[in-house]
């Protein structure tokens, strides 16, 4: 029950962020040179003059800035993100349709990064200054500096073109009509490369955070106590250190949620993954700015939700936190 109340409280705190995004979007529309209606319609005469008039009227562009803002807030609050002239359908629907693949990609990359990163960080910290530590540090240094889109392209060259182990792009094999487990397996094979390309940077990041955090925890008195009780080193790690050391990793995971969505834009583009990222890329190619604004709004909402979940995980991990 208290958890529910805490959740409600956090939800309330998220409202100003959503309001901020709406203000920022409104500001961006008016940042564009020229008529705001042309921003909303997509660039260079794609829309008919009649449609532009409808837009002007709908967004109150023929009225004062204050009224325009109120109209905009009203529309956003009803999740009316406007209409994509290029795609001939409402923006909100377009984005929701693409939500599934993006969620799958992000969740997979995120889980891989957190789990493997934690394990590697633990390995590096327990064998401090050993060759394992050195290798993990070196790999994470390189991973930090690698652009995800380039990594994806190189993976395609090696694993899809040269070795022909994995499909180059897409969500599933077109026209194969797999059923049941076969189709799951098929999507899985398509998912391996994009998820790895997206995960690598975060894997390195979490490994680094975990390593520092484990080292910090092992210096604490409670670890000495546990060892003095005669517990095995393994038991000290899994029973005592691990849970405490995970907290900074969880915090970092929440902080990085926004970047993960940004990263999935380029990775999806590379692999033709039919999610929000590819939609953003297509919107970019046709300069469909309103669709882009909608994607920005939805992904920011997604970050808010992820942060809520992270908060809840944090509370369950650390009972010391007052809720």
């Amino acid at each position, binding site marked *: 029950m208290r958890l529910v109340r805490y959740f409600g409280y956090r939800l309330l705190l998220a409202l100003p*962020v959503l309001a901020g995004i709406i203000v920022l979007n409104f500001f*961006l529309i008016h940042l564009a*040179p020229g008529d705001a209606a042309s921003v909303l319609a997509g660039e260079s005469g794609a829309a008919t003059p009649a449609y532009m008039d409808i837009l002007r009227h709908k967004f109150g562009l023929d009225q004062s800035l204050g009224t325009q803002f109120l109209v905009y807030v009203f529309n956003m609050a009803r999740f009316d993100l406007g209409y994509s002239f290029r795609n001939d359908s409402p923006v909100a629907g377009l984005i929701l349709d693409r939500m599934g693949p993006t969620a799958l990609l992000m969740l997979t990359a995120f889980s891989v990064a957190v789990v493997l990163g934690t394990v590697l960080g633990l390995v590096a910290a327990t064998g401090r200054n050993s060759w394992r530590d050195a290798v993990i540090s070196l790999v994470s240094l390189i991973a930090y*500096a690698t652009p995800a889109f380039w990594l994806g392209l*190189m993976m395609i060259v090696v694993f899809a*073109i040269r070795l022909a182990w994995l499909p180059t792009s897409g969500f599933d094999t077109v026209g194969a009509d797999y059923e049941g487990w076969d189709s799951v397996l098929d999507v899985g094979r398509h998912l391996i490369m994009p998820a790895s390309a997206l995960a690598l940077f975060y894997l390195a990041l979490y490994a680094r955070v975990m390593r520092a955090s484990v080292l910090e925890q092992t210096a604490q008195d409670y670890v000495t106590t546990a060892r003095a009780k005669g517990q095995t080193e393994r038991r000290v790690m899994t029973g005592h250190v691990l849970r405490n050391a995970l907290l900074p990793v969880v915090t970092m995971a929440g902080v990085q949620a926004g970047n993960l969505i940004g990263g999935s*834009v380029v990775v999806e583009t590379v692999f033709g993954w039919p999610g929000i990222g590819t939609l953003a890329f297509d919107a970019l190619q046709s300069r469909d700015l309103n669709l882009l604004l909608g994607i920005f709004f939805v992904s920011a909402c997604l970050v808010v939700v992820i942060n809520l979940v992270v908060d809840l995980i944090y509370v369950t991990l650390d009972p010391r936190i007052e809720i």
Partner: protein
Amino acid sequence: MKAGLLRFARNRMAVFGAAVLLALLAIVVLCPLLYPGDPFRLAGPPLQPPGQHFLLGTDTLGRDVAAGIAYGARTSLLVGVGATLAAILFGSIVGGLAGYYRGMMDVALMRVTEFFQTIPAFILAILIVAILSPSVPTEVLAIAAVSWPGIARLVRGEFVALGGREFVLACSGLGASDTRIIVRHLLPNCTSSIIAVGSLLIGTAILIESGLAFLGLGDPNVMSWGLIISAGRAVLRSAWWICAFPGIAILLTVLGINLVGDGLNEALNPRLRDR
């Protein structure tokens, strides 16, 4: 500062990073001599593999990939350093005001800072460039717009820590204006932290720039690494080198910057060493 530089010189990884960056700078300075003429110029037959007439091969239009990389280095460094300087300027103003005046100003400015840390930075950068139309200045602006929050929080923290110190109280007792205290006394005390954190920002900025250029949001008239990769994507199957080499250039540059940044962090910010 001098002791810090000595500590930096003893850090082998940092020295390696510095060597990589020096090599890059040499390429940027010498590239008009090495590759005279426009990097967009057709240099030979298209899709030449590397190692024959052209060190790194040619692209789909017969442009020299090596020349493109040399000229791209200039763009990357220009955008990376420019965006970082802009982010430091703006971040210092926001963080400085919040940390010096505290109170409502602090609360309000830090809320805004946290907001900008939460929202998906890369998508915001895409939006800004797309709306203002792609060019080097808009790229700098967009990257700066998503990079400043870290600096603002850093400067605020330093200002709060320094605020109650005797030399600051003495200054205000002597009647120094707020501006004078901030600019002459507080900011110089944060320089080493700003340099250390800022140096790492350049690497992030270069990564964002390459991502933007890859999505087609780079300046179409300026050669850049992301642009070469995005152009080479279509022929990935037959001509891997067009995409491979610019990516290696990005990797080495960002790696060099990160190593130097880590070295500076350890040398100048003993307090941050364990982070």
